[in-house]
């Protein structure tokens, strides 16, 4: 079936099977490989994107369901001049990523969190990230980076 949607501000279209997942459409049809697939039970969150402004696990949504939607992926997060946005920059500044595989989902999740809660507490961030698994960082620097991205002073939190 034919579908059209807006991805990172650009109109796109494609011919997909009914069973094609949004994650597959982004990766295979649009070559937007920044959206990663880390599990098959909608648990890990590496595939998290924004659909009409909401955080959505793209492995858990059919591409056809996103027909007509406004989709945002990690490839559309940087500033217009190509520099890292505030959340991305905070992740680099605070070493909030190691292997980088969960990172797109983490950044997209953090963006969705800060949109609804601009100054979350540590506990609120940890609760919100329940749907995003990271195996490298022990979450320390991810939580710290999100706090920093929201303008909070993180200098008193142990070790960089």
């Amino acid at each position: 079936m034919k579908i059209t949607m807006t991805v990172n501000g650009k109109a796109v279209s494609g011919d997909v099977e009914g069973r094609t997942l949004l994650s597959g459409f982004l990766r295979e049809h649009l070559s937007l490989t920044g959206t990663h697939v880390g599990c098959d039970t909608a648990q890990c969150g590496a595939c998290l994107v924004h659909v009409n402004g909401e955080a959505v696990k793209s492995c858990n949504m059919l591409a056809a369901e996103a027909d007509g939607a406004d989709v945002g992926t990690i490839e559309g997060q940087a500033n217009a001049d190509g520099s890292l946005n505030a959340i991305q920059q905070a992740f680099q500044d605070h070493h909030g990523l190691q292997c980088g595989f969960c990172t797109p989902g983490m950044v997209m999740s953090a963006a969705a969190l800060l949109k609804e809660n601009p100054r979350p507490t540590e506990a609120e961030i940890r609760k919100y990230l329940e749907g995003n698994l990271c195996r490298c960082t022990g979450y320390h620097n991810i939580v710290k980076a999100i706090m920093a991205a929201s303008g909070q002073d993180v200098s008193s939190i142990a070790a960089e």
Partner: protein
Amino acid sequence: MPKDSGIGASSKRREDVRFLTGAGNYTDDINVHGQAYVHFLRSDIAHGRIKSVDTSAAEAMPGVVRVFTGKDFEGVGGMPCGWEVTDKHGAPMQEPPHPILAQGKVRHVGDPIAAIVADSLEQARDAAEAIDLDIEELPAVIDMKAAAQDDATLVHDDLKNNICYDWQLGETDDAKVDEVFANAAHVTTLDLVNNRLVANPMEPRVAVGEYKRGTDEYTLFTTSQNPHVIRLLMCAFVLGLPEHKVRVVAPDVGGGFGTKIFHYAEEAFCTFAAKACGRPVKWTSSRSEAFMSDAHGRDHVSKIELALDADNNFIGLRTNTYANLGAYLSTFSSSVPTWLHGTLMAGNYKTPVIQVNVKAMFTNTVPVDAYRGAGRPEATFQLERVVDKAARELGLDPIALRRQNFVTQFPYDTPVALTYDTGDYNGTMDKLEAAADLAGFAARKAESEANGKLRGLGINCYIEACGIAPSNIVGMLGARAGLYDAATVRVNATGSISVMVGAHSHGQGHETAFPQVVADMIGIDESMIEIVHGDTSKIPFGMGTYGSRSLAVCGSAMVKATEKVIEKAKKIAAHLLEASEADIELKDGQFSVAGTDKSVAWGDVTLTAYVPHNYPLEVEPGLEETAFYDPANFTFPAGAYACEVEVDPDTGQVSIEKFTAADDFGNIINPMIVDGQVHGGIGQGIGQALLENCAYDENGQLLSASYMDYAMPRADDVPFYGVDHSSQTPCTHNPLGVKGCGEAGAIGSPPAVVNAVLDALNSGGKAVDHIDMPVSPSRVWAAMNS
């Protein structure tokens, strides 16, 4: 004042930019023109005899290119094991074949039976359902102690039993050990389980095989920690291909933690099938498939006994362990319960008599191999649990008992084959006591109790052996590989540098940290140096990244190669400056003549090397050097950890309230990256201690094959961690004085957590000796109420 560049600086990671913008290049992001997709039909029973595999209907399905079964690989080698362990009677381990696709029998849930190559993955999956299997189910061998019985069902019919080897290290005279225990003032005994885990890097494994008929060349893109090891094993032992015709590329890899060290059947299959099908062949593991095909970790059942004299000195230690190897020998599986485990049983202590016994078992489960720490967490868990239990039994302060028995003189020869070159265990413990504010624990405990919670403090010490080496010694111990590493420093004409390294970075930040070293040695900006890794066609033959070895081994090779570059550059500089080579000094990127103001810049010397008009005739043009480095010994990071937990007495729920790590990693190149490595290790260690468990039922069904069933630690399961690495005794035998930091957190944290839970229970009036990991609410509640 923290440095802002070079060795000791927390340089921000340059690789982050591509990862943060979706521009990483992971193996599944690679698609080769014309590729087909493979789906593996895997056994859904643990043990069975294959009567027939009828693929005719599947072959007729739409899009199917070819269906392979075990018969297609009868003339092909099996998956090799890279370490031959010799048992305590001098016999080699039992080493059964491990075919690419099952032949004769299936031996674990997930064992691949057939491989369907099709135009699309969906077509391959559909066709798999049309394969007609006739498999006679056999009793599953799951419990290790039952597997060791004489009448046990055999996992491998051609072996004499299910025991791969019965191995011993340390004191061989049983009577002497018995005597030590008979004369002890106190003996503490503990039976414990080191729970089976799945490494679970967030990126599942992927392999893409490609064959070019015109040049007879193969390329394998794979999620590996060590592409040269994969190429060697696959070419020499499995497919019989010449190495110079095979390129193995491990691009960005989304975490490894050990489980991407090993050579897997899927890699060999995709390489083989690319030629057989005349098309590139791609395999992407699903997460469920990963649970039943990635090598698992840990899974030891042990009994440990500690003998103390009347003054509370440790005088003897004896352990008996059953180690699960699963159904087949994975690449380095045999070394994990032996040379990476038994050798660590001395820990930080000067126990004079130690005997380690290990029976390694074949069972109808997924193969078990190295997972972050690999043998060292299993040793540390046994030792530190029994020390903690001894302290409780004797009414002693657990820190004081440890301090009393610390090794304090270095070098120290342990009774289990290692020589610790350096360390300061008391100094590190001092750092822990301060960093963890142990003096404030009583007040925190009172506050918890006021809130109706039990609070406990758990202490743990660890030592690990990293950068396993030297090659001649490990060869005598059974390793079938060298354990050196290599680096090529290629200086370009304009002075920028490409460093080709054998180590592989899959989260460790080599692309940032390694240039800090070279930049410091030459005195140029880090941005002038780039690290090339992960492609056998670009890098020298190196052994990859595991066992916290990258900086200690490969980094040393890089230093040696850079020293050669500098030595040659000084000859060129001496010529340009019309001075003696001995008088040339290199500082801040300037070559100068000692005692004069004559100098020439790094870039002028490098340009001269490639445009050698005014040039010393006896020196070759160009500026590129390679070094191979084989360490003289292991490195020995060590540390002391403190964990504070709260236990809810009504539910058994445990929460980690405070976690502090004090580590001695020797010298440190990038403190930010080191902290991150420790954080990640602690996160995984807490996962093992509280949450994770790879469970089989008695029929060999894998009960935990998805993230719905296997409890990965999530952000709200863990706290912020305190990390201190100011205790630094540099390694004495590598040029950087570095030790390795990748595994420490995963080794040091599980006993700290369990010790803390037991402290909470016992100080709260609940007499509980031990709880096996994961220390789940149900187990804690049951222990409290038994």
